[in-house]
């Protein structure tokens, strides 16, 4: 039987390792890895194929860079009621809980603010008036939605950026664990990691050191569970010596001052870990206190 992996190397690659197979591809504008502790090529290939299909599906559906996709439809409804499917409803329900638990700090309607802060070193500080105008369009509490419909004020734009990648990691992990319950696998999308199936000798995962990018500061051993990293190591800019990270406080309209450079949190699943990391970043100086109260393992780089 022809091995199918050769047919699909174009979009992603699958290489043999002594512990199993390493699958690599790109999605959500970040390098993605699937570590599969199993020796059969066709199973590894099928798992990788499932992971890529699911990751691309979520990206195409919720990326704010793709015209005409599901998110685009919602953001261009200018006030009209829109039909939503079950998956979108689940995400909105989760985002609402995060909004309430973080007293409004985590707000997925902060789309317009995101677009203002073009995060690359050459960007200038946006004028205060434009920030106020953008802030006026933000406010998750003004969105009405139920399991079938959503109605947003005109001009409001949702941005699932804060949760989509972690959600994709968990979805892929969930589906792989469901189809192959006894094959340990590690899903890693640009630092957001999930290991649904326990592995006897744990995976060794390197945590990036913000000062020296692309090489691991310290190594975490994970047998099961998830880990998410939130940080401005790549997306930040400095004006008059003040460093602005990519975490914007929706209430002030400005990036959070004194936010740590990066926060890594371990949790039961990637979405929870990611949310805690983002909320810690939003606490700015209070990041350490906040995470200590959550009694989760974490590491913060300042």
């Amino acid at each position: 039987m022809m091995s199918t992996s050769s047919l699909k190397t174009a979009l992603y690659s699958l290489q043999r390792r002594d512990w199993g197979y390493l699958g690599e591809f790109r999605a959500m504008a970040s390098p993605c890895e699937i570590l599969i502790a199993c020796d059969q090529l066709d199973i590894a290939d099928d798992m990788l194929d499932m992971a890529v299909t699911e990751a691309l599906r979520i990206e195409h559906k919720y990326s704010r860079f793709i015209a005409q996709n599901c998110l685009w439809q919602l953001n261009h409804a200018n006030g009209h009621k829109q039909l939503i499917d079950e998956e979108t409803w689940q995400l909105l329900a989760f985002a609402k809980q995060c909004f309430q638990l973080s007293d409004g700090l985590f707000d997925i309607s902060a789309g317009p603010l995101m677009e203002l802060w073009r995060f690359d070193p050459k960007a200038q500080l946006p004028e205060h008036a434009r920030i106020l105008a953008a802030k006026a369009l933000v406010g998750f509490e003004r969105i009405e939605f139920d399991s079938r419909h959503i109605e947003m004020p005109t001009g409001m734009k949702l941005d699932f950026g804060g949760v989509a990648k972690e959600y994709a990691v968990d979805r892929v992990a969930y589906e792989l664990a469901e189809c192959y319950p006894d094959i340990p696998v590690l899903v890693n999308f640009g630092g957001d990691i999930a290991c649904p199936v326990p592995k006897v000798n744990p995976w060794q995962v390197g945590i990036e050191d913000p000062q020296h990018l692309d090489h691991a500061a310290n190594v975490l051993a994970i047998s099961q569970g998830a880990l998410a990293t939130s940080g401005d190591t790549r997306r930040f800019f400095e004006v008059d010596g003040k460093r602005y990270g990519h975490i914007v406080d929706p209430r002030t309209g400005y990036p959070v001052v004194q936010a740590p450079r990066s926060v890594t949190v371990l949790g039961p699943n990637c979405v929870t870990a990611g949310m805690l990391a983002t909320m810690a970043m939003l606490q700015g100086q209070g990041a350490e206190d906040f995470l200590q109260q959550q009694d989760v393992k974490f590491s913060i780089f300042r």
Partner: protein
Amino acid sequence: MKKIWLLLSLMAAGVQAAPSLDHQVFNAQNQAVSLSEFKGKVVYVDFWASWCGPCRKSFPWMNEIQTKYQDQGLAVVAINLDTDNELAQEFLKQVPANFSVRFNPEGDVARSFDLLGMPSSFMFNRQGQLVQHHVGFYADKAAEYEQELVNLLKE
């Protein structure tokens, strides 16, 4: 006998026989626009139709290379050949595209490109010259197509 046919079909195709960027198509707002707007970029012209299976498979890949090489001057232009625009819109709803989509319901541009199958793709360098064309879409050949584009982008 075969040669005569060839001659006849060439003449029938009219002056613009060879594939080029000097052709009139319609944009999403149904305004007539010319393909020459992409001159100066490396252009990947793709002819597709809503009923064609392999075309549906090529969209995600075209999305990927458009996002990847956009700022290096790549323009992916997918020309729809459905006579019924409704079918094309239905397709685009299901299969999102983050590259330029144009429409040629009469198929006159497709005729002058003399397509051999669906989908058909044509690669133009920055000077607007046709350098490569392919018929159909195969996942295992996508890397080859991408490499050809990268070489053109480097010129």
